[in-house]
């Protein structure tokens, strides 16, 4: 493992990306980063731009107006990248997802548009669960970085 890979795994930067929904999972995500649960123990830092991020945390379901933005943010994130979907809406669409008839405003979960690596179900998930998901994401990032080299 090279120096850059080591640095990436021990200090992954996180971009918190809210797609839509009720904001419950955002509050829990921020609680997970705050001192009570302290996900920053793992070297995580919340960044303001997807261009700096290694891990993309998506919360909430995707409204149809938001489709171009989510695609753009995913493209802006540099490789290797990991997408962690947090909450029931981001995993399976939850309350807002309709199969038949289709919902006129809301598409469903972001994994219909971008590849999602780790799913953290819950409505809203506990901060412990989010820490669990982020750690899984870091492991996945390690896997991807080593695979990309070969």
């Amino acid at each position, binding site marked *: 493992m090279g120096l850059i890979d080591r640095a990436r795994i021990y200090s992954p930067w996180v971009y918190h990306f809210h797609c839509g929904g009720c904001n419950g999972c955002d509050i829990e995500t921020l609680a997970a980063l705050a*001192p009570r649960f302290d996900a920053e123990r793992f070297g995580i830092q919340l960044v303001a731009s997807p261009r700096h991020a290694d891990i993309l945390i998506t919360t909430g379901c995707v409204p149809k107006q938001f489709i171009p933005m989510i695609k753009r943010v995913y493209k802006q994130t540099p490789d290797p990248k990991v997408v962690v979907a947090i909450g029931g809406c981001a995993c399976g669409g939850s309350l807002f997802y309709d199969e038949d008839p289709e919902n006129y405003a809301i598409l469903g979960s972001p994994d219909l548009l971008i590849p999602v690596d780790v799913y953290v179900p819950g409505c809203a998930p506990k901060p412990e669960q989010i820490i669990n998901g982020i750690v899984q994401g870091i492991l996945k990032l390690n896997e991807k970085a080593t695979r990309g080299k070969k």
Partner: protein
Amino acid sequence: MSTHIKILKQVLQKYSSPMTLNYPSGVDKNRMYSQIPEGLRGFIERDEEKCVGCRACYMVCSGRATKIFDTAEKRTVQVFHFRCTYCAHCEECCPEEAIKMSKKFELTVTDKNDPKAYVNTDLKMISCKACNRPYLPEKMQKRVFERLSEKIDPKVKGIVVEDYHKTEGFCPDCKRARGVMLDTHTKKHVWLEVV
């Protein structure tokens, strides 16, 4: 009042030990491992022996997480954790008390089709004698008869049980079609009282 004392205790503890929960490791005894409140609703657990497949949980599910798949041999009652909102309506309405909200909340999966994300219960179906259509789980038919014979008025019990055995094995449509032939009207006992 007791909750106030609890909170006060926690606040005082903060001055003696670090505030961060000891979540993934759980080694330090001075720190709390995880905060699990009393009424926490976690993932649902279904008792496979108690469940009869009556569709009550499917009818009330607000997030459409509960789904029912019928085939000729079996009925599968499925809960998809990704779409579940932990409202516990299914626990409330379950007539057999088969569904319980557990305190488990840790689940991270990397694949949507992971069996960990689903709760499945398979039930054997019975087919109609006349039209060969699967219409009811075997267990449910048994349980319905048990509950019926418990609650029914003893005056009309004989007639109802007799009629039940006459139409046993027919699906609701075929039962209705054979109502006159087999002399099984639902309000028969009411007429008897009038006469």
